[in-house]
């Protein structure tokens, strides 16, 4: 209801109804006045006819008559020779109330005074209003019909470029695509809008790209200094003269460098996924990838005594970058291992042609709605940089895999729908 075209139509319709209504009222009074004016003229003409007739007659005889149309009465008293007065009145004629326009006047001819009343039937106001209503509704109906047609032809055509623009805006990725809006539009405002949007989109695109480039370069630039620190430390530890305390310090630095490296690598991975830099795709078997991942985590699964249940209805083959699928699955499975219970933990993996479900037992976590957002979710563990699920989400987005986090009965599940 609240869209542009309907809104416009309803505003127009509302004003049309108001205008038609008001004009009907005006019309009513105007036409009424016109008619009365006309009738009054006739009455006055008739009055002079009667006056002439009266003059020609013998005044002594006196004359008075009374018909439906006029009455002439002789009156003795000339006390009030009034000017013509014209008013409305109604009388019952054959049980029907009929409206009249009445002219009353007193004239004197040769000292003889006559009271003359001339009546003229006029249209009943009700009938009049009824017919006005009728035309009023007819007009409205016509307007509505016109508006419906208007909606489908005129408005749609007029607003078409606007809707096109809206659609382009809605469905394009301004950050990663250079989007331009047509400047070949007849309506000036829309043309201006499109031109402005094109400029804006170009700016967004450029800024995003340069920002992306900057971050990527920064991450890469960081790698060389990190490599230097690491190499120097590796040289230091070859010395035989290091004391235990020194070794402890060096060890801490190694750990920190490791974290830094992993963080940086994850950020590069994310930016590469977002930049679509994994163009190498092939047919990847999800099952064999899962097996490979489980193989690399066998130690962890064994040591934590996690019971693993794998239910494979059918293998799923997807066209994707193998490394990314490996990263995706290894992050999910790693997550299932490390966020598991310390005792009697379980992991269930279910694979069908349509979905993959990875569930693990674990403590209920209240605030985990935003598990994919690093900066919202989870405590930052000493050994985890916590970007794993962000990466998972991005890989899923890249390959249009729907991912869902489900938490129930002390069970955490990730469901991937292919």
């Amino acid at each position, binding site marked *: 209801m609240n869209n542009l075209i309907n809104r416009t139509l309803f505003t127009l319709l509302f004003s049309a109804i108001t205008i038609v209504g008001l004009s009907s009222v005006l019309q009513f009074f105007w036409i009424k006045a016109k008619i009365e004016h006309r009738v009054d003229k006739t009455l006055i003409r008739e009055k002079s006819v009667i006056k002439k007739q009266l003059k020609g007659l013998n005044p002594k005889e006196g004359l008075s008559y009374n018909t439906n149309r006029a009455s002439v009465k002789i009156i003795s008293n000339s006390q009030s020779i009034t000017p013509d007065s014209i008013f409305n009145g109604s009388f019952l004629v054959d049980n029907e109330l009929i409206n009249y326009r009445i002219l009353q006047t007193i004239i004197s001819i040769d000292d003889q005074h006559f009271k003359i009343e001339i009546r003229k039937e006029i249209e009943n106001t009700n009938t009049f209003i009824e017919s006005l209503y009728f035309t009023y509704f007819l007009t409205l109906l016509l307007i509505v019909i016109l508006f419906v047609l208007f909606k489908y032809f005129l408005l749609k055509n007029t607003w078409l470029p606007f809707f096109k623009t809206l659609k382009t805006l809605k469905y394009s990725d301004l950050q990663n695509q250079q989007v331009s809006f047509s400047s070949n539009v007849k309506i000036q405002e829309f043309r201006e809008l499109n031109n402005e949007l094109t400029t804006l989109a170009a700016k967004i695109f450029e800024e995003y790209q340069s920002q992306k480039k900057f971050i990527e370069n920064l991450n890469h630039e960081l790698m*060389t200094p990190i490599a230097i620190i*690491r190499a120097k430390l*590796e040289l230091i530890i*070859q010395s035989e003269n290091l004391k235990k305390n020194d070794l402890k310090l*060096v060890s801490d630095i190694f750990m920190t460098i490791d974290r830094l490296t992993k963080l940086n690598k994850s950020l590069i991975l994310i930016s590469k996924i977002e930049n679509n*830099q994994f163009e190498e795709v092939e047919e990847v078997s999800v099952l064999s990838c899962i097996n490979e991942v489980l193989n*690399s985590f066998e*130690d962890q699964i064994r040591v934590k005594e996690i019971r693993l249940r794998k239910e494979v209805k059918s293998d799923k083959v997807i066209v994707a970058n193998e490394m990314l699928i490996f990263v995706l699955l290894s992050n999910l499975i790693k997550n299932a291992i490390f966020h598991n219970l310390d005792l009697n933990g379980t992991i269930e993996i279910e694979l069908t042609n349509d979905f993959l479900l990875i569930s693990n037992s674990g403590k209920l976590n209240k605030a985990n709605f935003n598990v994919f957002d690093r900066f919202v979710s989870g405590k930052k563990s000493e050994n985890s940089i916590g970007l*794993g699920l962000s990466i998972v989400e991005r890989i899923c987005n890249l390959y249009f895999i729907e991912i869902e986090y489900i938490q129930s009965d002390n069970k955490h599940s990730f469901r991937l729908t292919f």
Partner: protein
Amino acid sequence: MKILIIEDDQELLRSMLKYFDSFGYNSEGSKTLRSAKEKLDHHSYDCVVLDLNLPDGNGLSIINKIKELKNKTGILILSANNSLDDKLDGLELGADDYLTKPFHLAELNARIKSILRRNKFDGDDLLTFNEIDIDTSSKDVRVNKNLLKLTKKEYELLLFLVSNKNRVVTKQSISDHIWGDYVDIYDSYDFIYSHLKNLRKKIIEKGGKDYINTVYGIGYKFSNNE
């Protein structure tokens, strides 16, 4: 063994040269493509470590020249840019391996040794440390000629340590070597320890000596002494 390292970063180059010197390699460094080409014209190398981002061009362009001069020269690409394109291009052009910065010197060394073994004629893929023989083509490990039954990880661990014999190898480099970049295992150090324990046991069972020395807090060293 002659190695040429082409790397524009002075400090990194010096560190690599120093590390290789300690193994007794004859290693030289070049900071530009131009000086590398000159060196290649006058000397022959067993292995070239090649950084791709050089001030006077992309390192990839020199691969053909290296291969033309001496086909058996091993090439290991170093790059700060972990891009698959570079990797594929490099390997297609004839590079033997690819390593991303920041790398561990121990890893670089292990890779170079592996390249050299592969590029040598006549099955010189035997690595020996006292009574321990590692056949890298069949992946058989013998102690006093007795075959050891090792798991894949134990084998890789042993090979990595022996490749870096007499050097302290960090836990981090072992973890990265065994589990790879993206697996990123939190408590991998405990697992290194348990694999090493098994490895030690197996070697000693066959009459071998325990060469795996723990360096407090840092890692391990495969060596005779101590």
